[in-house]
């Protein structure tokens, strides 16, 4: 194979790597995806679900920008439903359960159909850099692949170790070899590495459970879709999920066997695990007062023999796992097909990165996904998309594409990562998005599709559909202010004479369905609901916008990359160090660095101005000479 035309090399075919490779190739750059096991591309190694609170917003944003995840899950979901429907439009989100093999196959097919992507089997263990820039990657079998930019998307594989009881194996995840040399290569380039852990629950035989003993969670009976580029349709028959619970018997078993746990008794694991995804051991030990915990039983596909036991992540020995499963109502007789395990892996502190996800240390080298200390498919995919875009733009000599906290969850996540760093696996949460009233699941297209189009990731068909949709929505919103409703009472709410559709929708009691007949018939899918949300939230949105605009002047004020904090005597030494370490991109990012005072930030702002004005002066003088 000849690689001499290669622009971008993506290392790792997980959720991050796939988005990166597709985006890069779509921007017209020859792209090679090197991955350990091409058959495992886009595996879902843990839970079968995509989306959910905050993660659903990420999937929508990926889709709005022209990424793949929404299309993949829409084509392969066995169960979709809304979360948080009654809790507020800004936190509403879709969650889908994927048919795991179908999802991975779809991802592989999209990659293979994409001109400009070459898939290469191999494990990368060396990075070749010179002159402060990345030049090539080397594989374990001695090949060298030259690249103008490299995207690392290696997931849980760096120095990966799996644990189950006292069994410790060198694995990136169960049954797959870890990446051995790459951690060392990164360390030699000066990257500080840390260690994190996560875990997965056992899988059981779906023919051996008794659904009658569990509560059913039904999927939506109307088709729902993540992607804006596809009309909602069922991907296949929709399957239920179930809920069961642990009991004192389960907890007693956990306690009795803690001495056999690699985390507790055996003390083998040093990596820090996610708080939002505790193992059943953690739940029993740290929440000893809870008499019982909910356990979620989820299908992994239409034809998959397994069920996923959500909430039951464990690294106890397999025999204990089976005994514990048998204490759960409905699972008394279940057969365990695969035991749960924990995995520990290296990550690189994301404070090493710019907002473009390029490393500060090595030019043209990009990091994304779990390598950055995040966890979750959606978090990985979103970073992959950004890294792929920016690697390709680098090769094309274009300015980086950046998202902000004020325009997206993706921007919020990246800003969190690169300015604060991580000390536990990072998961996207709605509470991290201070502007979430603006950053809704429903309006991701309005926020980001024009950006995706500018990038070149939205094709003409999708763009025309978007423009038409935007016009329909705008027209219907102004129309709602003129349409009179005839009833005087709707859904228990009294309406003044002459009330308009908009007046009615402003009442919290009145929902879209209550006034469905007043919407123009030209609206499609969820559009009436989107209009209702815009109208209901208008006051909150206005307030949030104002706050954003006010903050934006300072927030978005850029700090030059080479800005010399050392020379500002007015800053305390501590502040100088912190700023030097975090290198905030904007004054707003500086303000979020823990431990900096408003005065520190004011001082930086002053000096940034001076810096800029001087440069302009110099440029002015040069101009005068020429």
């Amino acid at each position, binding site marked *: 194979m000849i690689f001499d035309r290669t622009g971008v090399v993506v290392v790792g075919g997980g959720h991050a790597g796939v988005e990166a490779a597709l985006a890069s190739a779509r921007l017209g750059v020859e792209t090679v995806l090197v991955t350990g096991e091409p058959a495992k591309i886009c595996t879902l190694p843990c*839970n079968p679900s995509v989306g959910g*609170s*905050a993660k659903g917003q990420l999937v929508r944003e990926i889709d709005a920008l022209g990424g793949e995840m929404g299309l993949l899950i829409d084509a392969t979901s066995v169960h979709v439903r809304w*979360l*948080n429907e*009654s*809790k*507020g*439009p*800004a*936190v509403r989100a879709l969650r889908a359960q994927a048919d795991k093999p179908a999802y991975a196959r779809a991802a592989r097919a999209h990659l293979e159909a994409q001109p400009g992507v070459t898939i290469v089997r191999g494990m990368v263990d060396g990075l070749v850099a010179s002159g402060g820039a990345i030049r090539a990657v080397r594989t374990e079998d001695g090949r060298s692949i030259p690249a103008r930019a490299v995207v690392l998307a290696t997931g849980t594989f760096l120095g990966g170790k799996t644990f189950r009881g006292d069994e410790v194996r060198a694995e990136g995840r169960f049954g797959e070899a870890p990446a051995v040399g790459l951690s060392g290569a990164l360390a030699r380039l000066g990257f500080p590495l840390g260690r994190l852990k996560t875990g997965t629950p056992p899988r059981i035989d779906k023919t051996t459970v008794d659904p009658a003993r569990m509560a059913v969670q039904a999927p939506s009976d109307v088709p729902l879709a993540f992607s804006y580029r596809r009309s909602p349709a069922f991907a296949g028959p929709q399957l239920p999920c179930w809920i069961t619970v642990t009991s004192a018997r389960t907890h007693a078993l956990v306690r009795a066997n803690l001495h056999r746990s690699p985390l507790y008794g055996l003390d083998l694991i040093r990596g820090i695990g*996610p*708080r*939002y*995804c*505790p193992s059943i051991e953690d*739940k029993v030990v*740290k*929440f000893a007062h*809870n008499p019982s*915990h*909910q356990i*979620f039983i989820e299908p992994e596909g239409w034809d998959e023999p397994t069920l996923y036991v*959500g*909430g039951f*992540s464990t690294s106890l020995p397999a025999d204990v796992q089976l005994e514990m499963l048998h204490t759960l109502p409905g699972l008394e007789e279940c057969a365990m097909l695969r035991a749960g395990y924990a995995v520990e892996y290296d990550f690189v502190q994301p404070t090493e990165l710019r907002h473009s996800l390029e490393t500060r240390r090595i030019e043209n080298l990009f990091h994304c996904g779990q390598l950055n200390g995040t966890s979750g498919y959606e978090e990985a995919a979103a970073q992959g998309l950004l890294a792929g875009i920016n690697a390709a733009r680098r090769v094309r000599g274009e300015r980086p594409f950046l998202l902000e906290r004020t325009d997206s969850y993706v921007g919020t996540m990246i800003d969190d990562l690169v300015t604060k760093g991580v000390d536990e696996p990072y998961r996207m*949460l*709605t*509470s*991290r998005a*201070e502007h*979430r*009233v603006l950053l809704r699941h429903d309006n991701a297209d309005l926020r980001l599709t024009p950006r995706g189009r500018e990038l070149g990731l939205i094709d003409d068909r999708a763009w025309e559909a978007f423009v038409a949709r935007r016009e329909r929505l705008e027209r219907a919103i102004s129309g709602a202010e003129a349409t009179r409703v005839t009833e005087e009472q709707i859904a228990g709410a009294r309406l003044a004479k002459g009330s308009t559709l908009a007046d009615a929708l402003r009442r*919290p*009691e009145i929902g879209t369905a209550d006034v469905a007949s007043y919407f123009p018939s030209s609206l499609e899918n969820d559009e009436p609901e989107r209009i209702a949300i815009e109208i209901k*939230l208008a006051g*909150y949105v206005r307030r*949030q916008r104002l706050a954003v605009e006010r903050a934006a*002047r*300072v927030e978005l004020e850029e700090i030059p990359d080479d800005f010399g904090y050392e020379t500002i005597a*007015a*800053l*305390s030494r501590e502040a100088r160090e912190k700023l030097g370490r975090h290198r905030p991109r904007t004054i707003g990012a500086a303000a*979020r660095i*823990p431990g900096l*005072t*408003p*005065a520190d930030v*004011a*001082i930086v*702002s*002053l*000096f940034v*101005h*001076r810096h800029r*004005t001087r440069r302009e002066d110099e440029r002015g003088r040069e101009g005068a000479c020429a």
Partner: protein
Amino acid sequence: MRASGDAARAISARVFRSRGTLRPRYATLGSILDAEGLEIDRGLGLFFPAPDSYTGEDVFELHVHGSPIVVGETLGALLAAGARLATPGEFTRRAFLHGKLDLSAAEAVADLIDAESRSAARAARARLAGGLLAAVDAERVKLDAILAELSGTLDFPDEVPEPPRERLAGELVAIGTGLETLARGFEVGRLVREGVGVAIVGPPNAGKSSLLNALLGDDRALVSELAGTTRDTIEESFALDGGVRVRLIDTAGIRSHADRLEAAGIARSERALEGARVALVVVDGSRPLDDEARALLERTRARPRVVVFNKRDLGDAGYEGREPPEKGALAVSVLEPADVARIRSALRDAVGIDAPDLERPHLATARQADCVHAALRALERAQRTLDDGQPIDLLAGDLVEASAALGELGGDAATEAILDAVFARFCIGK
């Protein structure tokens, strides 16, 4: 005092009333009003429309008497009208951002900001170390517990149930009450820090300076049998029993026929009287009250005061042998230590702050009060959101603001605190 920004004009309308409208860049005399619309003081108001102002934004300036009381109350009125306190150097930063400052000026300011902020931060930490931090934290912990529950149910809907709205409403009311108590404490805190102003006023020769000396236990002020001895105000500070500090201000005797120099002194007396929290009115009780003494007694009737009919050793013609006519007035001789002790104790009552008040946590600075007011405003919005039947997510947004405002007092980041609470309280995760 200066307010800058889009709301400056609206704020000026709320706190300042003058006969005509404010003409741009002209000083106008008018009344400074508190939140209830009552006059705090008279002063000069100036309005500078953007961009021709110090900061380049709409700017409203108020020039008031220097008394810390008037300044404090005016500040309170501005905050109540929707202003917030500038962060250190914020005016300058804004000025700079709008291209209003040259560089050398900006650099000088940066150095200043630095010095000031460091000493202010030290002082703030010291103040917060005590009960105040605990009191603020107590409310914040309650807020964060609600937020943890809301974030929990929003981010982990399968695992954390939505809290009942009636319970939330009750909890918000309780927090609001706690915050209001804290906000009210701001007033006490300021008095504690700056001292309670007590102006000794009265006709010439009534014995005002003698009283000052007696209370201080020191011959601080000149005393003579000549009327008009004191020409300028004298301020001294001393502690009442129980530890409340008093700023005692001796003034020139007030009378209408005075020479020009004396008239200037009398003008100062008037101002001291206006600015003080408590009036200590001294009249000569051994002689019939003249019109001016009567007028003074009348004028001070509505405010916290102590009235003494002095020189009782010389007679009681001022009240013709009956009890002093003014309710609660004391017949004394300031030359008599036992009488001075009675005056002290009457003063303590009039000041109205006691030792237990001092031990309660108080907001010491206007910045702290600002934070609490911001929290209260956000809390009110949250209550409205809840009352209107809006979804709980919107409630969470308001509460985050409230918590952040309180967090600013203690100086830590809100999001992280709430997330910590989520994970500490709920067992979450699949």
